[in-house]
């Protein structure tokens, strides 16, 4: 069984079916990039993976655990599955350190005080922002905020990280610094599923590309093959429209 096992997932909002039977497998250490036009269900799928959205049919397993099972302790599962949002969603009333250490100290994985600060320092060094440990989110640029959001995720010690269009809200000149952090993570062997419009990133870093169209997985495969020989006209159109 795969590390992340998404099987035939269906999901509707009101009367609109957004996911129409999606099946994707993600192995440990894989970088899976989901691409597709807006409205193709990419973000919804990501939100289903960590249980933010319910599903109507099918099954999602992470490390064998069924996400949408009533018996599953969703909170414990989420400590293993980090998610980074488009809008950063840092807590405005907390410093960078407090943002990072809130969850680890509340869930009692790390003691308050020295140990917590050390943890904050360590994850901030991984995104290159140690010197901003005492800043408030509003005092940081968008790119820096997004890197803090990634650090906040890392502090939980996740086994899987989800990235939901994390560079879409950024000014163009700030996109690079965030992508670089993600590349580093990929190189260190983190399992990642990301929704993105950054085609170069998808091409160079991903181990698998999933092209979603109209609520279904339309095509998937290794990036080189997929970009070179798109099998369907929809993917061909999509690729040419992003150039």
């Amino acid at each position: 069984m795969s590390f992340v096992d998404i099987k035939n997932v269906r999901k509707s909002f009101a009367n609109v079916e957004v996911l129409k039977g999606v099946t994707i497998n993600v192995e440990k250490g894989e970088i899976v990039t989901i691409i597709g036009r807006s409205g193709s269900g990419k973000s919804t799928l990501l939100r289903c993976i960590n249980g933010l959205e319910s599903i109507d049919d099918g099954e999602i397993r992470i490390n064998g655990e069924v996400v949408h099972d009533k018996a599953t302790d969703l909170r414990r599962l989420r400590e293993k599955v980090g998610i980074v949002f488009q809008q950063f969603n840092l807590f405005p009333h907390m410093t960078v350190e407090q943002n990072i250490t809130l969850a680890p100290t509340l869930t009692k994985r790390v003691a308050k005080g020295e140990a917590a600060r050390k943890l904050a320092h360590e994850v901030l060094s991984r995104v290159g922002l140690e010197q901003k440990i005492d800043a408030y989110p509003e005092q940081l640029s968008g790119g820096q905020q997004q890197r803090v959001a990634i650090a906040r995720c890392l502090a939980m010690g996740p086994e899987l990280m989800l990235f939901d269009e994390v560079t879409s809200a950024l000014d163009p000149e700030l996109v690079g610094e965030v992508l670089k952090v993600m590349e580093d993570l990929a190189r260190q062997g983190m399992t990642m599923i990301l929704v993105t419009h950054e085609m170069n990133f998808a091409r160079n870093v991903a181990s698998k590309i999933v092209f979603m169209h109209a609520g279904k997985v339309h095509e998937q495969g290794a990036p080189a093959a997929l970009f070179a020989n798109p099998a369907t006209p929809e993917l061909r159109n999509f690729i040419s429209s992003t150039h």
Partner: protein
Amino acid sequence: MTLNFNQLWRYQDDFLHGIQMTLTLTLIATVAGMLIGLLGALLSNNRLPAVRLLIRSYVEVIRNTPALIQIFLIFFVLPYAGLRLPPFEAAAVALSIYMGAYSVEIFRSGLASIPRSQIEAGQCLGLTRFQVFRHVILLPALRNIYPSLTSQIILILLGSSLASQVSAEELFHTAAFVESRTYRSFEVYAVVCAIYFVMVLSLRLIFAGAERIAFRWPTRR
């Protein structure tokens, strides 16, 4: 007619006692009212329609009838329910209920002012519902409602003067008492209004100071 404030000095202790009772009344109504308000706000999107209707009715009835009548009702009607409260306590109950109704609306708007994405971010970090409320929602929401909440507390301080109408001992009651002894109506009411004014001004200063200490994080605006 000449002004004569000298006679009022003899009643200094009465005035001080009145001030103390007025502040006590305000404090009780504020604390109890805010607790009611918080509870009501948390329950106002309850799953049960009956609970929502109950809270809605409470808020609308209190907000659309005069506080004076509410104080009379509590004072004269509670004995029928077997609860005979002294005037001060009855007034405290009535003002708490009054403050509660306005607080429900204030706290509700505060909770609504926190974007859903903040709550989701908390959930995704593995926090419990209570932890999300306590650490993610509470402080930013309080900051958003701080102006309306503090104005409401000042309105309660001023409104506590209505308690004098059921003979509860507070500042306004003192005023009526001193007036009946001295017949110096103009001076008495001028002085009492001035005392209220100073209390309101001091309270505003305290609120402004507390705001600066409690909400230090920078915001976009």
